[in-house]
């Protein structure tokens, strides 16, 4: 049972370590999907670059926040 629980935690941890990144990734994909579905034929192919831009922005924002938090912790100690 312990091994199964550890395996589940491992599988969950594979995908979700930072909630902001995980949820942000899903939201970015949903936004790209909405663009693709409702943007019409002409704009559909822009959903790929849009997904790239959204994800990279998410990564930068998340890392910026993490860096600020980590620095604040160090200065606080």
């Amino acid at each position, binding site marked *: 049972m312990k*091994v199964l629980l*550890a*395996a589940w935690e*491992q*599988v969950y941890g*594979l*995908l*979700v*370590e*930072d909630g902001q*990144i*995980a949820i942000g*990734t*899903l939201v970015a*994909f949903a936004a*790209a*999907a909405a663009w*693709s*579905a409702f943007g019409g034929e002409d704009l*559909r*192919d822009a*959903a*790929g670059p849009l*997904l*790239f831009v959204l*994800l*990279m922005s*998410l*990564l*930068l924002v*998340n*890392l*910026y926040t*993490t*860096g*600020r*938090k*980590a*620095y604040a*912790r*160090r200065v606080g100690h």
Partner: protein
Amino acid sequence: MILTLAIAAVPAFVASVVEWVEAFTIVLAVGNTRGWRSPIWGTLAGLGTLAVIVGVFGTPLIIFHDQINQSFHIVVGILLLLFGMRWLRKAILRFAGIIALHDEEMIYQREVAELRAQGLTPNRWDNIGFWFSYKAVLLEGLEVAFIVIALGAQGGPALQAAIMGAVAAFLVTMVAGALLHKPLAFVPENFMKFVVGAMLTTFGIFWGAEGLLVEWPLRDATLLLILGGVCLVSLVAVRMLALIAPQGARVAVRNI
């Protein structure tokens, strides 16, 4: 065809080396502290379990690949993105000194101390040694299995290439470990994790968008453009973190 196979085999190999090195460190600690019989059986049992997992989840991919092509691209794309972005973020934080680098030597010493604290059993079969090794191989191998299944989602040949990459990584790691008989601390795990994170994110964007019926202008060659973009953003991120926390923040990852 060759590109498809390389796309599946190379990241599977690199990611698997990282995971097998981590599993090897624990199995080595068990073997050197409690004897080799139980950890070898534990390792074999762990590998057998992983083979079953890949078989159960991988076989439907081959059989039903054509019927579920589009929706499957979406699912695999999202999974690769979740997995890749996680590895990428962690590797960037390590490059910037925000979290500690993975140190196989330190992990080995910690495992040895923990195993010694459990005490040795007088009988020949060592349950602790077996389960420690089984758990290590299974848990680290789950990441390998996940990557193999995700990269093999393009169909039968891709799945075979991904499996071959993972098996080759296992053999290389075991041979190197058996020859050196010490933790493989020289393997540049952080750099390799960054490479895998960047590749998985790239494939996730590419396949995920294809699932949304996007046609990439340069077809498969677009992969290189996306990969270049991901690497560039990562470089910017490391520079940005160096400005925010010039000497690194040196805090444990769990505290972030």
